[in-house]
Protein backbone atom coordinates (compact mmCIF):
# COMPACT_ATOMS: atom_id res chain seq x y z
CA UNK A 1 0.00 0.00 0.00
CA UNK A 2 1.25 3.40 -0.95
CA UNK A 3 1.03 6.05 1.63
CA UNK A 4 0.37 9.27 -0.25
CA UNK A 5 1.20 11.61 2.57
CA UNK A 6 4.69 10.19 2.75
CA UNK A 7 5.62 11.88 -0.48
CA UNK A 8 7.65 15.03 0.03
CA UNK A 9 8.85 15.82 -3.47
CA UNK A 10 6.87 15.15 -6.58
CA UNK A 11 8.17 16.20 -9.95
CA UNK A 12 5.73 15.39 -12.73
CA UNK A 13 6.88 15.41 -16.33
CA UNK A 14 8.73 18.64 -15.77
CA UNK A 15 10.59 20.37 -18.57
CA UNK A 16 12.90 23.32 -18.33
CA UNK A 17 13.48 25.24 -21.51
CA UNK A 18 16.14 27.79 -22.20
CA UNK A 19 16.15 30.02 -25.21
CA UNK A 20 19.53 30.17 -26.77
CA UNK A 21 19.27 33.16 -29.01
CA UNK A 22 21.40 32.82 -32.11
CA UNK A 23 22.97 36.05 -30.97
CA UNK A 24 22.26 37.40 -27.56
CA UNK A 25 19.66 40.10 -27.92
CA UNK A 26 19.60 42.24 -24.87
CA UNK A 27 19.32 45.71 -26.16
CA UNK A 28 16.27 47.49 -27.36
CA UNK A 29 17.51 48.47 -30.78
CA UNK A 30 18.36 44.96 -31.80
CA UNK A 31 15.16 43.68 -30.32
CA UNK A 32 13.11 46.15 -32.32
CA UNK A 33 14.96 45.38 -35.54
CA UNK A 34 14.67 41.65 -35.09
CA UNK A 35 11.06 41.88 -34.09
CA UNK A 36 10.37 43.96 -37.15
CA UNK A 37 12.18 41.57 -39.45
CA UNK A 38 10.56 38.63 -37.67
CA UNK A 39 13.98 37.25 -36.98
CA UNK A 40 13.42 36.83 -33.32
CA UNK A 41 13.97 33.13 -33.56
CA UNK A 42 15.34 31.22 -30.68
CA UNK A 43 16.93 27.87 -30.68
CA UNK A 44 15.08 26.00 -28.03
CA UNK A 45 17.11 23.98 -25.65
CA UNK A 46 15.63 21.65 -23.10
CA UNK A 47 17.76 21.36 -19.98
CA UNK A 48 15.21 18.90 -18.68
CA UNK A 49 12.61 17.04 -20.65
CA UNK A 50 9.64 15.23 -19.11
CA UNK A 51 11.46 14.35 -15.93
CA UNK A 52 9.43 12.66 -13.24
CA UNK A 53 10.63 11.89 -9.78
CA UNK A 54 8.83 10.95 -6.60
CA UNK A 55 10.71 11.16 -3.34
CA UNK A 56 9.33 9.96 -0.05
CA UNK A 57 10.13 11.32 3.35
CA UNK A 58 13.46 10.09 4.74
CA UNK A 59 14.77 8.74 1.47
CA UNK A 60 18.21 9.55 0.14
CA UNK A 61 18.54 10.10 -3.57
CA UNK A 62 21.62 10.60 -5.65
CA UNK A 63 21.56 12.33 -9.00
CA UNK A 64 24.19 10.92 -11.33
CA UNK A 65 25.08 11.63 -14.91
CA UNK A 66 27.69 13.39 -17.02
CA UNK A 67 28.27 17.14 -16.99
CA UNK A 68 25.40 19.06 -18.51
CA UNK A 69 22.92 16.26 -17.95
CA UNK A 70 20.56 18.50 -15.99
CA UNK A 71 21.37 17.39 -12.46
CA UNK A 72 21.77 20.90 -11.08
CA UNK A 73 18.79 22.08 -13.08
CA UNK A 74 16.63 19.47 -11.39
CA UNK A 75 17.90 20.54 -7.98
CA UNK A 76 17.20 24.18 -8.79
CA UNK A 77 13.72 23.23 -9.89
CA UNK A 78 13.08 21.53 -6.56
CA UNK A 79 14.52 24.52 -4.65
CA UNK A 80 12.14 26.87 -6.53
CA UNK A 81 15.03 28.79 -8.06
CA UNK A 82 13.74 27.79 -11.49
CA UNK A 83 10.15 27.25 -12.43
CA UNK A 84 9.19 24.52 -14.90
CA UNK A 85 8.23 25.41 -18.43
CA UNK A 86 5.91 22.43 -18.53
CA UNK A 87 4.85 19.95 -15.91
CA UNK A 88 4.70 20.51 -12.19
CA UNK A 89 6.87 20.45 -9.12
CA UNK A 90 5.42 19.94 -5.69
CA UNK A 91 7.50 20.08 -2.53
CA UNK A 92 6.46 19.70 1.07
CA UNK A 93 8.62 20.87 3.94
CA UNK A 94 11.60 23.13 4.45
CA UNK A 95 14.61 22.96 2.16
CA UNK A 96 18.24 23.64 3.00
CA UNK A 97 19.75 24.41 -0.41
CA UNK A 98 23.43 23.85 -0.96
CA UNK A 99 23.75 24.54 -4.65
CA UNK A 100 26.79 26.60 -3.84
CA UNK A 101 28.22 27.08 -0.38
CA UNK A 102 28.31 30.66 0.74
CA UNK A 103 26.31 32.00 -2.17
CA UNK A 104 25.51 35.52 -1.16
CA UNK A 105 28.52 36.15 1.00
CA UNK A 106 29.42 39.80 0.70
CA UNK A 107 33.22 39.89 0.30
CA UNK A 108 33.50 43.24 2.04
CA UNK A 109 31.65 42.26 5.18
CA UNK A 110 33.22 40.36 8.03
CA UNK A 111 32.46 36.69 8.64
CA UNK A 112 30.31 37.56 11.63
CA UNK A 113 28.16 39.95 9.57
CA UNK A 114 27.96 37.46 6.74
CA UNK A 115 26.68 34.72 9.00
CA UNK A 116 23.66 36.87 9.83
CA UNK A 117 23.02 37.93 6.23
CA UNK A 118 23.40 34.40 4.91
CA UNK A 119 21.09 33.06 7.57
CA UNK A 120 18.53 35.70 6.66
CA UNK A 121 18.84 34.76 2.99
CA UNK A 122 17.90 31.24 3.96
CA UNK A 123 14.87 32.67 5.70
CA UNK A 124 15.92 32.46 9.34
CA UNK A 125 14.86 35.04 11.90
CA UNK A 126 17.13 37.28 13.93
CA UNK A 127 16.30 35.41 17.10
CA UNK A 128 17.18 32.06 15.53
CA UNK A 129 20.50 33.32 14.19
CA UNK A 130 21.51 34.80 17.52
CA UNK A 131 20.81 31.52 19.25
CA UNK A 132 22.78 29.45 16.77
CA UNK A 133 25.64 31.85 16.05
CA UNK A 134 28.14 30.12 18.31
CA UNK A 135 27.23 26.72 16.99
CA UNK A 136 27.92 27.85 13.42
CA UNK A 137 31.24 29.42 14.33
CA UNK A 138 32.29 26.32 16.18
CA UNK A 139 31.40 23.90 13.40
CA UNK A 140 33.12 26.05 10.77
CA UNK A 141 36.20 26.49 12.98
CA UNK A 142 36.51 30.19 12.20
CA UNK A 143 36.30 31.68 15.69
CA UNK A 144 39.70 33.35 15.33
CA UNK A 145 38.77 35.00 12.03
CA UNK A 146 35.33 36.38 12.78
CA UNK A 147 36.30 40.02 12.33
CA UNK A 148 38.03 39.41 9.03
CA UNK A 149 36.33 40.35 5.75
CA UNK A 150 35.26 37.27 3.79
CA UNK A 151 37.36 38.37 0.81
CA UNK A 152 40.44 37.33 2.76
CA UNK A 153 39.11 33.84 3.46
CA UNK A 154 40.38 30.78 1.64
CA UNK A 155 37.85 28.88 -0.44
CA UNK A 156 37.94 26.02 2.04
CA UNK A 157 37.10 28.33 4.92
CA UNK A 158 34.26 29.86 2.96
CA UNK A 159 32.89 26.41 2.20
CA UNK A 160 33.09 25.42 5.85
CA UNK A 161 31.24 28.53 6.90
CA UNK A 162 28.64 28.09 4.16
CA UNK A 163 28.03 24.48 5.11
CA UNK A 164 27.75 25.35 8.78
CA UNK A 165 25.12 28.02 8.09
CA UNK A 166 23.14 25.88 5.67
CA UNK A 167 22.93 22.93 8.04
CA UNK A 168 22.33 24.76 11.30
CA UNK A 169 18.64 24.16 10.90
CA UNK A 170 17.37 20.60 10.70
CA UNK A 171 15.62 20.80 7.34
CA UNK A 172 13.04 18.41 5.96
CA UNK A 173 14.95 18.25 2.71
CA UNK A 174 18.69 18.70 2.25
CA UNK A 175 19.87 19.52 -1.27
CA UNK A 176 23.58 19.12 -1.87
CA UNK A 177 25.17 19.85 -5.24
CA UNK A 178 28.81 18.75 -5.32
CA UNK A 179 29.75 21.40 -2.86
CA UNK A 180 32.07 19.41 -0.69
CA UNK A 181 34.79 19.02 -3.29
CA UNK A 182 36.69 22.11 -2.08
CA UNK A 183 37.19 21.11 1.53
CA UNK A 184 40.01 18.96 2.88
CA UNK A 185 39.29 15.37 3.83
CA UNK A 186 38.86 16.10 7.52
CA UNK A 187 36.19 18.64 6.69
CA UNK A 188 34.58 16.35 4.12
CA UNK A 189 34.26 13.64 6.74
CA UNK A 190 32.80 16.09 9.18
CA UNK A 191 30.19 17.13 6.62
CA UNK A 192 29.38 13.56 5.69
CA UNK A 193 28.84 12.75 9.33
CA UNK A 194 26.54 15.66 9.80
CA UNK A 195 24.57 14.67 6.72
CA UNK A 196 24.29 11.10 7.95
CA UNK A 197 23.14 12.38 11.31
CA UNK A 198 20.39 14.35 9.59
CA UNK A 199 19.43 11.36 7.48
CA UNK A 200 18.95 9.19 10.50
CA UNK A 201 16.87 12.00 11.99
CA UNK A 202 14.40 11.70 9.12
CA UNK A 203 15.72 14.32 6.72
CA UNK A 204 15.35 13.65 3.02
CA UNK A 205 18.54 13.98 1.01
CA UNK A 206 19.12 14.92 -2.61
CA UNK A 207 22.74 14.56 -3.51
CA UNK A 208 24.81 15.23 -6.60
CA UNK A 209 28.28 13.80 -6.82
CA UNK A 210 30.65 12.53 -9.45
CA UNK A 211 32.18 10.13 -7.01
CA UNK A 212 30.30 6.84 -7.23
CA UNK A 213 31.82 5.66 -3.97
CA UNK A 214 30.34 8.57 -2.08
CA UNK A 215 27.01 8.02 -3.78
CA UNK A 216 26.95 4.38 -2.73
CA UNK A 217 27.91 5.36 0.80
CA UNK A 218 25.40 8.15 1.24
CA UNK A 219 22.36 7.20 -0.78
CA UNK A 220 19.93 4.35 -1.13
CA UNK A 221 18.30 5.44 -4.37
CA UNK A 222 19.58 7.07 -7.49
CA UNK A 223 18.36 8.68 -10.66
CA UNK A 224 20.54 8.79 -13.75
CA UNK A 225 20.07 11.76 -16.03
CA UNK A 226 21.45 12.12 -19.50
CA UNK A 227 20.80 15.04 -21.84
CA UNK A 228 17.95 16.20 -19.68
CA UNK A 229 16.13 12.91 -19.69
CA UNK A 230 15.82 10.16 -17.12
CA UNK A 231 17.84 7.18 -18.18
CA UNK A 232 17.32 5.02 -15.15
CA UNK A 233 15.84 5.09 -11.67
CA UNK A 234 16.52 2.55 -8.99
CA UNK A 235 18.67 1.70 -6.03
CA UNK A 236 21.99 3.46 -5.81
CA UNK A 237 23.97 0.29 -6.44
CA UNK A 238 22.07 -0.70 -9.57
CA UNK A 239 22.19 2.74 -11.08
CA UNK A 240 25.86 3.28 -10.24
CA UNK A 241 26.78 -0.06 -11.79
CA UNK A 242 24.92 0.72 -14.98
CA UNK A 243 26.34 4.21 -15.12
CA UNK A 244 29.90 3.00 -14.59
CA UNK A 245 29.46 0.44 -17.33
CA UNK A 246 28.24 3.04 -19.81
CA UNK A 247 31.18 5.30 -18.99
CA UNK A 248 33.69 2.52 -19.54
CA UNK A 249 32.21 1.51 -22.86
CA UNK A 250 32.64 5.06 -24.16
Amino acid at each position, binding site marked *: MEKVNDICIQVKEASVRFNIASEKVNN*LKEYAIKLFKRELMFKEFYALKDVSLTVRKGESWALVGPNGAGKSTLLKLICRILSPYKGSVWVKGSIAPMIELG*AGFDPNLTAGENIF*INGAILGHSKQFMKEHFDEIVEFAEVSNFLGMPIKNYSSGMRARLGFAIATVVKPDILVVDEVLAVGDSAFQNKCMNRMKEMLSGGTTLLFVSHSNDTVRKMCKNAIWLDHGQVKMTGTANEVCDAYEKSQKSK
Partner: protein
Amino acid sequence: MKKHISALRFRIKMLLKYRYLLALLVERDIKLKYRRSFLGYLWSILNPLFSMIIMMIVFSYMFGRGIKNFPVYLISGNILFAFMRDSSTLAMNSIIGNAALLKKVYVPKYIFTLSKVTSSLVNLLFSLGALLIVMVITKVPITWYCLLIVIPIIELYIFCVGLGLFLAQANVFFRDIGNIWGVVTLAWMYLTPIFYSIDNLSPVLRYWIPKVNPMYIYITQFRDFVLTGGWTWTVLIWRGLFISLLMLAIGLWSFARNKDKFILYI
Protein backbone atom coordinates in the same frame (compact mmCIF):
# COMPACT_ATOMS: atom_id res chain seq x y z
CA MET B 1 -11.46 36.10 -5.51
CA LYS B 2 -10.67 33.71 -2.67
CA LYS B 3 -7.61 32.57 -4.57
CA HIS B 4 -6.37 36.15 -4.84
CA ILE B 5 -6.82 36.76 -1.14
CA SER B 6 -4.91 33.63 -0.19
CA ALA B 7 -2.16 34.56 -2.67
CA LEU B 8 -1.97 38.00 -1.11
CA ARG B 9 -1.83 36.48 2.35
CA PHE B 10 1.03 34.27 1.22
CA ARG B 11 2.93 37.28 -0.14
CA ILE B 12 2.54 39.15 3.11
CA LYS B 13 3.69 36.10 5.04
CA MET B 14 6.80 35.90 2.86
CA LEU B 15 7.52 39.59 3.33
CA LEU B 16 7.29 39.13 7.08
CA LYS B 17 9.49 36.07 6.95
CA TYR B 18 12.19 37.95 5.06
CA ARG B 19 11.88 41.29 6.84
CA TYR B 20 15.02 40.52 8.80
CA LEU B 21 16.93 40.05 5.54
CA LEU B 22 15.54 43.37 4.36
CA ALA B 23 16.76 45.09 7.51
CA LEU B 24 20.20 43.49 7.21
CA LEU B 25 20.58 44.47 3.56
CA VAL B 26 19.71 48.08 4.35
CA GLU B 27 22.16 48.03 7.23
CA ARG B 28 24.84 46.57 4.98
CA ASP B 29 24.39 49.28 2.35
CA ILE B 30 24.71 52.01 4.92
CA LYS B 31 27.64 50.37 6.66
CA LEU B 32 29.60 49.69 3.50
CA LYS B 33 28.93 53.09 2.00
CA TYR B 34 31.14 54.78 4.52
CA ARG B 35 33.38 51.97 5.72
CA ARG B 36 36.99 53.16 6.02
CA SER B 37 36.04 56.78 5.49
CA PHE B 38 37.18 59.17 8.16
CA LEU B 39 34.03 61.24 8.45
CA GLY B 40 31.67 58.30 7.95
CA TYR B 41 27.97 59.05 8.14
CA LEU B 42 28.72 62.75 8.29
CA TRP B 43 29.15 62.59 4.52
CA SER B 44 25.43 62.04 4.15
CA ILE B 45 24.97 65.51 5.60
CA LEU B 46 28.02 67.15 4.08
CA ASN B 47 27.36 65.99 0.51
CA PRO B 48 24.00 67.70 0.04
CA LEU B 49 25.35 70.71 1.93
CA PHE B 50 28.33 71.13 -0.38
CA SER B 51 26.37 70.57 -3.56
CA MET B 52 23.81 73.10 -2.37
CA ILE B 53 26.53 75.66 -1.73
CA ILE B 54 27.98 75.15 -5.18
CA MET B 55 24.61 75.32 -6.88
CA MET B 56 23.75 78.39 -4.87
CA ILE B 57 26.89 80.17 -5.97
CA VAL B 58 26.27 79.21 -9.59
CA PHE B 59 22.54 79.70 -9.85
CA SER B 60 21.74 82.52 -7.50
CA TYR B 61 23.05 84.90 -10.17
CA MET B 62 20.81 83.40 -12.81
CA PHE B 63 17.58 82.19 -11.24
CA GLY B 64 17.76 82.91 -7.56
CA ARG B 65 16.44 86.43 -7.70
CA GLY B 66 12.83 86.57 -6.71
CA ILE B 67 12.89 83.31 -4.79
CA LYS B 68 12.53 83.73 -1.06
CA ASN B 69 15.09 81.81 1.02
CA PHE B 70 16.87 80.49 -2.02
CA PRO B 71 19.28 78.20 -0.07
CA VAL B 72 16.43 76.33 1.62
CA TYR B 73 14.45 76.28 -1.61
CA LEU B 74 17.42 74.79 -3.40
CA ILE B 75 18.46 72.19 -0.86
CA SER B 76 14.94 70.88 -0.28
CA GLY B 77 14.42 70.31 -4.00
CA ASN B 78 17.87 68.85 -4.33
CA ILE B 79 17.70 66.21 -1.61
CA LEU B 80 14.31 64.94 -2.74
CA PHE B 81 15.41 64.72 -6.34
CA ALA B 82 18.68 63.06 -5.35
CA PHE B 83 16.69 60.46 -3.42
CA MET B 84 14.60 59.65 -6.48
CA ARG B 85 17.65 59.50 -8.75
CA ASP B 86 19.84 57.44 -6.41
CA SER B 87 17.15 55.01 -5.34
CA SER B 88 15.96 54.35 -8.89
CA THR B 89 19.51 53.87 -10.17
CA LEU B 90 20.40 51.47 -7.36
CA ALA B 91 17.11 49.62 -7.61
CA MET B 92 17.54 49.27 -11.35
CA ASN B 93 20.68 47.20 -10.82
CA SER B 94 19.39 45.31 -7.80
CA ILE B 95 18.37 42.19 -9.71
CA ILE B 96 21.28 41.85 -12.12
CA GLY B 97 23.68 42.81 -9.35
CA ASN B 98 22.55 39.85 -7.27
CA ALA B 99 22.49 37.42 -10.18
CA ALA B 100 25.02 35.06 -8.61
CA LEU B 101 22.91 34.70 -5.51
CA LEU B 102 19.54 34.45 -7.23
CA LYS B 103 20.84 31.53 -9.25
CA LYS B 104 21.73 29.58 -6.14
CA VAL B 105 19.14 30.26 -3.45
CA TYR B 106 15.45 30.97 -3.51
CA VAL B 107 14.78 34.45 -2.13
CA PRO B 108 11.86 36.70 -3.02
CA LYS B 109 13.58 38.85 -5.59
CA TYR B 110 11.84 42.12 -4.80
CA ILE B 111 13.57 42.13 -1.40
CA PHE B 112 16.75 43.34 -3.10
CA THR B 113 14.95 46.12 -4.94
CA LEU B 114 13.07 47.18 -1.84
CA SER B 115 16.27 47.22 0.22
CA LYS B 116 17.97 49.61 -2.21
CA VAL B 117 15.10 52.10 -2.14
CA THR B 118 14.95 51.83 1.63
CA SER B 119 18.66 52.41 2.15
CA SER B 120 18.36 55.50 -0.07
CA LEU B 121 15.52 56.63 2.16
CA VAL B 122 17.78 56.34 5.20
CA ASN B 123 20.28 58.46 3.32
CA LEU B 124 17.56 61.02 2.67
CA LEU B 125 16.78 61.14 6.39
CA PHE B 126 20.44 61.91 7.06
CA SER B 127 20.35 64.73 4.53
CA LEU B 128 17.44 66.28 6.40
CA GLY B 129 20.15 67.18 8.90
CA ALA B 130 21.75 69.31 6.21
CA LEU B 131 18.39 70.96 5.57
CA LEU B 132 18.05 71.73 9.27
CA ILE B 133 21.50 73.33 9.35
CA VAL B 134 20.67 75.54 6.38
CA MET B 135 17.34 76.51 7.94
CA VAL B 136 19.01 77.53 11.18
CA ILE B 137 21.74 79.52 9.42
CA THR B 138 19.34 81.33 7.10
CA LYS B 139 16.93 81.92 10.01
CA VAL B 140 13.91 80.24 8.45
CA PRO B 141 11.40 79.78 11.26
CA ILE B 142 10.95 76.15 12.23
CA THR B 143 7.27 75.43 12.82
CA TRP B 144 5.11 72.41 13.60
CA TYR B 145 4.22 72.26 9.93
CA CYS B 146 7.76 71.05 9.25
CA LEU B 147 6.76 67.69 10.68
CA LEU B 148 4.26 67.26 7.87
CA ILE B 149 7.11 66.64 5.44
CA VAL B 150 6.55 62.96 6.26
CA ILE B 151 3.56 63.13 3.88
CA PRO B 152 5.54 63.95 0.73
CA ILE B 153 8.40 61.70 1.86
CA ILE B 154 6.10 58.69 2.25
CA GLU B 155 4.44 59.43 -1.09
CA LEU B 156 7.80 59.75 -2.76
CA TYR B 157 9.02 56.52 -1.17
CA ILE B 158 6.03 54.60 -2.51
CA PHE B 159 6.59 56.19 -5.91
CA CYS B 160 10.26 55.20 -5.89
CA VAL B 161 9.50 51.61 -4.86
CA GLY B 162 7.17 51.31 -7.85
CA LEU B 163 9.64 52.98 -10.18
CA GLY B 164 12.48 50.83 -8.86
CA LEU B 165 10.56 47.59 -9.35
CA PHE B 166 9.66 48.59 -12.89
CA LEU B 167 13.23 49.56 -13.80
CA ALA B 168 14.76 46.52 -12.13
CA GLN B 169 12.67 44.07 -14.14
CA ALA B 170 13.07 46.03 -17.39
CA ASN B 171 16.84 46.16 -16.94
CA VAL B 172 17.04 42.37 -16.79
CA PHE B 173 15.75 42.07 -20.33
CA PHE B 174 17.15 45.26 -21.83
CA ARG B 175 20.43 46.41 -20.41
CA ASP B 176 20.08 49.65 -22.37
CA ILE B 177 17.82 50.91 -19.62
CA GLY B 178 20.86 51.30 -17.43
CA ASN B 179 22.55 53.55 -19.94
CA ILE B 180 19.57 55.66 -20.84
CA TRP B 181 18.36 56.23 -17.30
CA GLY B 182 21.15 58.69 -16.52
CA VAL B 183 20.03 60.82 -19.45
CA VAL B 184 16.37 60.54 -18.51
CA THR B 185 17.00 61.69 -14.95
CA LEU B 186 19.12 64.57 -16.23
CA ALA B 187 16.28 65.78 -18.44
CA TRP B 188 13.84 65.17 -15.61
CA MET B 189 15.98 67.29 -13.29
CA TYR B 190 15.89 70.25 -15.65
CA LEU B 191 12.13 69.86 -16.04
CA THR B 192 11.70 70.03 -12.29
CA PRO B 193 11.86 73.42 -10.62
CA ILE B 194 14.78 72.67 -8.31
CA PHE B 195 16.97 75.69 -8.79
CA TYR B 196 14.50 77.90 -10.62
CA SER B 197 10.95 78.94 -9.94
CA ILE B 198 8.11 77.54 -12.00
CA ASP B 199 6.99 81.11 -12.63
CA ASN B 200 9.98 81.58 -14.93
CA LEU B 201 8.71 78.98 -17.37
CA SER B 202 6.56 79.36 -20.44
CA PRO B 203 2.79 79.08 -19.91
CA VAL B 204 2.66 75.65 -21.56
CA LEU B 205 5.24 74.15 -19.23
CA ARG B 206 3.72 75.99 -16.31
CA TYR B 207 0.44 74.28 -17.08
CA TRP B 208 1.77 70.78 -17.63
CA ILE B 209 4.56 70.32 -15.09
CA PRO B 210 2.32 70.43 -12.00
CA LYS B 211 0.01 67.93 -13.66
CA VAL B 212 2.43 65.32 -14.98
CA ASN B 213 5.74 65.70 -13.16
CA PRO B 214 5.46 63.81 -9.89
CA MET B 215 8.72 65.26 -8.61
CA TYR B 216 7.24 68.75 -8.86
CA ILE B 217 4.30 67.60 -6.79
CA TYR B 218 6.37 66.06 -4.01
CA ILE B 219 8.93 68.86 -3.91
CA THR B 220 6.28 71.55 -3.83
CA GLN B 221 4.46 69.93 -0.92
CA PHE B 222 7.75 69.60 0.91
CA ARG B 223 8.70 73.21 0.32
CA ASP B 224 5.32 74.50 1.37
CA PHE B 225 5.62 72.75 4.72
CA VAL B 226 9.22 73.78 5.31
CA LEU B 227 9.42 77.24 3.82
CA THR B 228 6.05 78.89 4.24
CA GLY B 229 5.29 77.24 7.56
CA GLY B 230 1.73 76.51 6.45
CA TRP B 231 -0.47 74.00 4.70
CA THR B 232 0.08 73.08 1.07
CA TRP B 233 -2.57 72.70 -1.61
CA THR B 234 -4.69 69.75 -0.60
CA VAL B 235 -5.08 68.79 -4.24
CA LEU B 236 -1.31 68.27 -4.49
CA ILE B 237 -1.41 65.70 -1.71
CA TRP B 238 -4.17 63.72 -3.39
CA ARG B 239 -2.52 63.96 -6.78
CA GLY B 240 0.82 62.86 -5.32
CA LEU B 241 -0.79 59.91 -3.56
CA PHE B 242 -2.61 58.88 -6.71
CA ILE B 243 0.57 58.99 -8.81
CA SER B 244 2.60 57.09 -6.23
CA LEU B 245 0.01 54.32 -5.92
CA LEU B 246 -0.30 54.14 -9.68
CA MET B 247 3.47 53.81 -10.03
CA LEU B 248 3.52 51.15 -7.33
CA ALA B 249 0.81 49.21 -9.14
CA ILE B 250 2.72 49.40 -12.43
CA GLY B 251 5.92 48.31 -10.71
CA LEU B 252 4.35 45.41 -8.85
CA TRP B 253 2.43 44.24 -11.89
CA SER B 254 5.39 44.28 -14.28
CA PHE B 255 7.69 42.70 -11.70
CA ALA B 256 5.28 39.91 -10.77
CA ARG B 257 4.63 39.18 -14.43
CA ASN B 258 8.29 38.72 -15.31
CA LYS B 259 10.00 37.56 -12.15
CA ASP B 260 10.04 33.88 -13.08
CA LYS B 261 11.82 34.68 -16.33
CA PHE B 262 14.66 36.63 -14.68
CA ILE B 263 16.70 33.53 -14.02
CA LEU B 264 16.98 32.81 -17.75
CA TYR B 265 18.42 36.25 -18.48
CA ILE B 266 20.68 37.09 -15.56
